[in-house]
């Protein structure tokens, strides 16, 4: 009975808990309810994943109205993969947040913060389950507005200009997407994605659809922080409260990438002549620039969180690189990297949250020698860093391996692309090493207050780290989900 309503529950649970959390007001209680709601959403997404693995796709009609007229929710492997990341990282970050947020947000504002958090979660889940282009827009704005609030909750005043930039760029992106949807609706008269794909076949003049494809791709690229539209990301991640960074770094951009891939590969690819080439020519150079430039910037960055944020820009480059090959192997690698990068980055940002408990400034020169005082935190950082670099035995290795084999298979330019991937992995070694060097071999500060982070933070951090190792050794579930998602998106390819 409950089984069949899981797609709706995925959104409803966090969305209805959000006002309750706000009404509770009390810090501890509101945290407990928010965490419980997030864990419930995680359980629902596990249930949905099991359904998807068993029967490949499940569709849910809101109010039992038939599909192109009513609103349809659709869960396939791609949504299941992303749902696991979104709800999982939200839960783990909230659990860590019990301790970490106490330092960063005053007690009376915490209930409001958790409420915004649940709205962001509900919005992201909504994007992932919805099969309706306009609903995706509405959920996108719900999640974006809530994440602006999350970032603005940071204790540093520099969070405010960062959030203003995030807000203007995010709104421009969403409005571009809205224009694109409008043009498609103008030509096809439908908003349901599957119906849209069918009806574009019947459209005589494809020029508006082409313009719509441009608007949607650029708008979503803004939201997904695809280079050079990433300028809002580094500061927003740096000044957000630490656990909010964990959540946003793992999910916010990935969810927009999901919509981008769904539109470009599923809706436009079979209908627009030469779209694969236009898409690849647009995305491939940008991905390479993102990988190289953002990694280079990260190598010279002093602020620990901004360093990791720049590395996120580079990792988004890997994902889009995989997608721009427009092959099943490439797309599988890209989707797998969405999953594995979320694992690695959550663990790294959680380790930052641990460090922030006893180090005043998260700068490379001010964490000298902390590894002697905080051995567990730094060990977690090193292991997660290895996963980010892509060392065998960690999750990062699996996706890089698939990415490299997909690029090799993509033709004569493949070798060049592999070279870029290898060079940027070496750059990742450099920027992770700078942190490790300072923490392990740097001159110790005399500050006696530096002590190991509390267990309440170490446990979620190590859970994330162990997940990195687990999915490095047993990558079956994400691999199966992403390869069947690639099958669904590129169904028209042999």
């Amino acid at each position: 009975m409950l089984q069949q309503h899981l797609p709706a529950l995925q959104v409803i649970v966090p969305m209805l808990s959000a006002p309750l959390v706000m009404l509770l007001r009390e810090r501890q209680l509101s945290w407990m309810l928010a965490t419980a709601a997030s864990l419930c959403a995680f359980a629902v997404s596990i249930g949905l994943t099991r359904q998807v693995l068993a029967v490949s796709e499940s569709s849910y009609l809101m109010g039992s109205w038939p599909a192109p007229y009513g609103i349809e929710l659709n869960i396939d492997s791609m949504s299941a993969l992303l749902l696991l990341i979104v709800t999982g990282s939200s839960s783990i970050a909230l659990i860590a947040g019990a301790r970490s947020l106490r330092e960063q947000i005053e007690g009376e504002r915490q209930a409001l913060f958790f409420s915004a958090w649940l709205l962001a979660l509900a919005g992201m889940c909504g994007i992932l389950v919805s099969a309706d282009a306009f609903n995706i827009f509405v959920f996108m704005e719900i999640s974006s507005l809530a994440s602006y609030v999350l970032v603005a909750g940071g204790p540093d005043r520099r969070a405010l200009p960062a959030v203003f930039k995030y807000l203007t760029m995010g709104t421009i992106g969403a409005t571009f997407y809205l224009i694109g949807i409008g043009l498609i609706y103008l030509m096809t008269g439908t908003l349901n994605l599957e119906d849209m794909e069918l009806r574009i076949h019947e459209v005589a003049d494809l020029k508006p659809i082409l313009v719509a494809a441009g608007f949607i791709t650029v708008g979503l690229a803004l939201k997904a922080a695809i280079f050079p539209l990433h300028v809002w990301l580094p500061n927003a991640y740096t000044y957000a409260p630490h656990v909010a960074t964990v959540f946003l770094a793992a999910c916010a951009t990935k969810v927009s990438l999901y919509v981008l891939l769904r539109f470009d590969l599923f809706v436009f690819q079979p209908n627009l002549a030469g779209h694969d080439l236009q898409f690849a020519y647009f995305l491939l150079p940008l991905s390479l620039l993102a990988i190289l430039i953002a990694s280079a910037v990260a190598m010279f960055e002093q602020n620990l969180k901004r360093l990791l944020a720049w590395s996120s820009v580079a990792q988004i480059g890997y994902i889009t690189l995989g997608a721009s090959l427009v092959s099943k192997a490439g797309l599988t690698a890209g989707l797998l990297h969405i999953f594995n990068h979320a694992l690695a980055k959550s663990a790294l940002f959680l380790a930052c949250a641990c460090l922030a408990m006893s180090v005043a400034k998260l700068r490379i020169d001010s964490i000298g020698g902390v590894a002697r005082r905080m051995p567990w935190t730094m060990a977690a950082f090193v292991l997660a860093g290895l996963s980010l670099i892509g060392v065998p035995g960690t999750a990062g290795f699996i996706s890089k391996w698939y990415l490299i084999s997909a690029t090799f298979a993509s033709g004569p330019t493949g070798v060049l692309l592999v070279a870029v991937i290898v060079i940027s992995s070496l750059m990742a070694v450099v920027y992770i090493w700078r942190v490790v060097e300072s923490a392990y071999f740097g001159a110790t500060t005399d500050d006696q207050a530096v002590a190991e982070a509390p267990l309440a933070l170490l446990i979620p951090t190590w859970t994330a780290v162990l997940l990195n190792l687990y999915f490095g050794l047993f990558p079956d579930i994400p691999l199966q989900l992403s390869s069947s998602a690639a099958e669904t998106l590129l169904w028209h390819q042999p």
Partner: protein
Amino acid sequence: MELLGLYYYWVFAILLMTGFYAVIAKLNLIKKLLGLSLFQAAVFLLYITMGKVEGGTAPILARGSAEQLFSNPLPQVLILTAIVVGISTTALGLGIVVRIKEEYGSIEEHEILEIDRQ
């Protein structure tokens, strides 16, 4: 003549670009937000015009008149939602501007950057 006949699309494009220009070029944060609202409003107009059927009236079913010509109500419903989204965005943006003014004492982008650099 076809170019003039499509004047409502010209209105859309001009409003859109005016708003976009303000968001990019203006340094004052309030003016940026004004531009953003204009930018969004232009898209609302795009949706409203596409739903209009020539000679069509409001889509209200009246008893006994089966052959009425209606405008498409769906874009209007969509835009009602989008207007709500737009208002929330503007409200949140203004709230952030107020906080910026409290913290920095300025709402000019270059001055804020200057203060941060120190």
